[in-house]
């Protein structure tokens, strides 16, 4: 069984995001970039399945500028076998990502495709679902537990009401929740070994698909600053203020 895992390079979750002065986007120059956190869970799960003997190969794929390769390299350092880097500049929207991944699935013929439930930069939460539609494969989104069975997957999903257990046939798409596992650390010897693992590079423009953005981004701005709170001296005053000033009751 082969597992394809899609990973994305995003601004590190600890970095305080800064909006460009002209409102055209956020500042990325000299900003620490990392793998999208739930993508780390996706890689970890794939590697665990391989270690349990139920998969034979884990392939990590990413789309983006030259430096996005680091994200694949990181996946290789925690146990992926080989990588694919699809070179593309600028904004690639979820539909374009899904179409690119569809091409890679046609080429690689994996049994499972894993990815994070969403990326922390655009928060779209669409790629897995769109890929599932394009391939006409079953999908299990927000997975917090995966049990691999013969030709089937049992997946526990994180949903608003609690947990939902579903069973789907493979091949399938799974998008991973942060609760799925605890990603391992890349050890120093494994980082060195990862430098020798192969990464195939392809150009998005050579895949014969339209990846131009369909959404026009008009403006990016910071959320409005929260106003300072006030202290009230009694419940009566609170009720009075909620009624007359905030007008919420």
């Amino acid at each position, binding site marked *: 069984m082969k597992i394809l895992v899609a990973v994305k390079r995003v601004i590190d979750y600890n970095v305080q995001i800064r909006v460009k002065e002209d409102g055209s986007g956020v500042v990325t120059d000299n*900003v620490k970039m990392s793998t999208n956190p739930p993508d780390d869970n996706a890689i970890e799960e794939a590697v665990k399945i391989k270690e349990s003997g139920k998969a034979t190969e884990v392939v990590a794929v990413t789309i983006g500028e030259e430096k996005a390769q680091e994200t694949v390299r990181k996946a290789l350092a925690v146990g992926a076998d080989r990588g694919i880097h699809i070179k593309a500049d600028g904004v690639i929207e979820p539909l374009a990502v899904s179409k690119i991944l569809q091409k890679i699935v046609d080429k690689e013929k994996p049994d499972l495709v894993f990815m994070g439930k969403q990326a922390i930069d655009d928060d779209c939460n669409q790629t897995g679902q769109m890929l599932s539609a394009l391939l006409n494969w079953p999908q299990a989104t927000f997975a917090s537990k995966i049990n691999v069975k013969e030709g089937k997957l049992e997946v526990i999903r994180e949903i608003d009401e609690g947990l939902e257990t579903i069973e789907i046939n493979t091949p399938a798409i799974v998008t991973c929740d942060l609760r799925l596992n605890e990603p391992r650390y890349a050890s120093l010897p494994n980082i060195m070994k990862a430098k020798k693992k192969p990464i195939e590079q392809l150009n998005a423009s050579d895949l014969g698909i339209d990846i131009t953005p369909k959404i026009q981004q008009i403006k990016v701005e910071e959320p409005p600053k929260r106003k300072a709170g006030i202290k009230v001296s009694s419940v009566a005053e609170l009720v009075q203020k909620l009624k007359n000033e905030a007008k919420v009751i």
Partner: protein
Amino acid sequence: MGRESMEYDVVIVGGGPSGLATAIKLKQLDSKLNICLLEKASEIGAHILSGNVFETRALDELLPNWKELNSPIKTKVSKEKFLFLGKNRSLSWPTWLLPKVQQNHNNYIISLANLCRWLGEQAEVLGVEIFPGFPASEILYNDEGSVKGVATQDMGIDKEGNQKDSFEPGIELLGKVTVFAEGCRGHLGKQLIEKFKLSEGKDPQQYGIGFKEIWEIEDKNHEEGMVTHTAGWPLDNNTYGGSFMYHAENKQVFLGYVIGLDYKNPHLSPYDEFQRFKTHPAIRKIISGGKRISYGARALIEGGLQSLPKMYMPGALLVGCDAGTLNMPKIKGSHTAMKSGMIAAETIIEKIKENKSLSGYEEKFKNSWAYKELHAARNVKPSFSWGLILGIIFTGIDQILFKGKLPFTLKHKHADHETLKSANEMPKIDYPKYDNVITFDKTSSVYLTGTNHADNQPVHLKLKDPDLPISYTLEKFDEPAQRYCPAGVYEVQKENDVNKFVINSQNCIHCKTCDIKEPSQNITWVTPEGSGGPKYGNM
């Protein structure tokens, strides 16, 4: 579980200017050498903070074609000012009357973090193996006592010291020579200085704490290439310190403050002095209407030659400010740090190829321009122990008339942890409230550093005696850690009328001030789990 080990020709601890210069020079001298460089930050540059007005002298020697290599050194200093501040006034000191070492017209305003990122790329192109996110936490010794390498930190240890599921043991990295380039108050360098008695016969080391904020300011207030330094207000005559304001590219100014850690009043809060300084009319007019985008702090070395330890020992060398090569009157250390690394590289090649002793490092350093600079600079900092006014008068005589060649050397008498007077002897300082426009509280400042440490790991700020902060330091000094820490790590909280000392180690921005200033030397900074700490951008 046993640790794996890997052998290299040279192991370098720390990816700042000195460590990276060592690595690059080594590869230039012998491209076949296997060199590994460890960095505790998540990437090269993420723990680097500096002013920085950069003198290119060492870089000119190391990579003469730096201009063609797309280096991030772009903004030449175009104009300079030195201001004495009174509470509401400022007096401009003519630049031509400044000592030559404080004139900057051939220098550049840079982000040292970005310079290090670029140096890291140059080193990787040459084949240096760089491992960010791997702090060296332990020194390894041969049986006969020489240094044989370092071990990286175990990953995946919980608060109580137990192994988590994700446990990953550290690795032993063994080198024919190990180079320690951790920067000011390196926690391994400190152990080496003690074990090999490297500072015997030297004056106690002197430190400062430096703050830096980056502001994006209005066009009309921005003058790219402009460099301003100030002395005076808000500090009193007996406290050593001053500010810098550098107009960098992209409408940014690098605004900072440095205070000598030999200050005496335990009520002094370096952070609040810096915040207050920004409200001075001469400073406020530049930054008003602007936006603060970064904050950080780091301790720096101020001791100079008198405090410089021996820089070699069996199997290892100290470079840059892990030893203490900063030139205080010049307010610069990057060039001397790089130079010390380059000299270290030459020494290491002779050691590996001709089996010459590492002691050659000291002699080579003594013959270099870096040493001559430090020698000429040596009397400036100690003269300020007489106060700002006498310090300036003496410095004028020493630096302008005698060009640093006076036939005597002043001494540093005390270590910085010995200088605090008791809280009840010293005046309390009433700092103004933060306005959230020009001045900000520590919490919102720390937020800008992007600092983070994985949850559930041991506290990396160790107390030798856990009761001392409350039983002694609070009583005697009003627990100054609450004020000297620039990140709000230390708090004294009252719980059911009982005082409790709280360490918020996840806030730590790795400045090392607590390790230096704690009056009983009760706090020891050790490496947290890899990648922890600030995520500085263009600091």
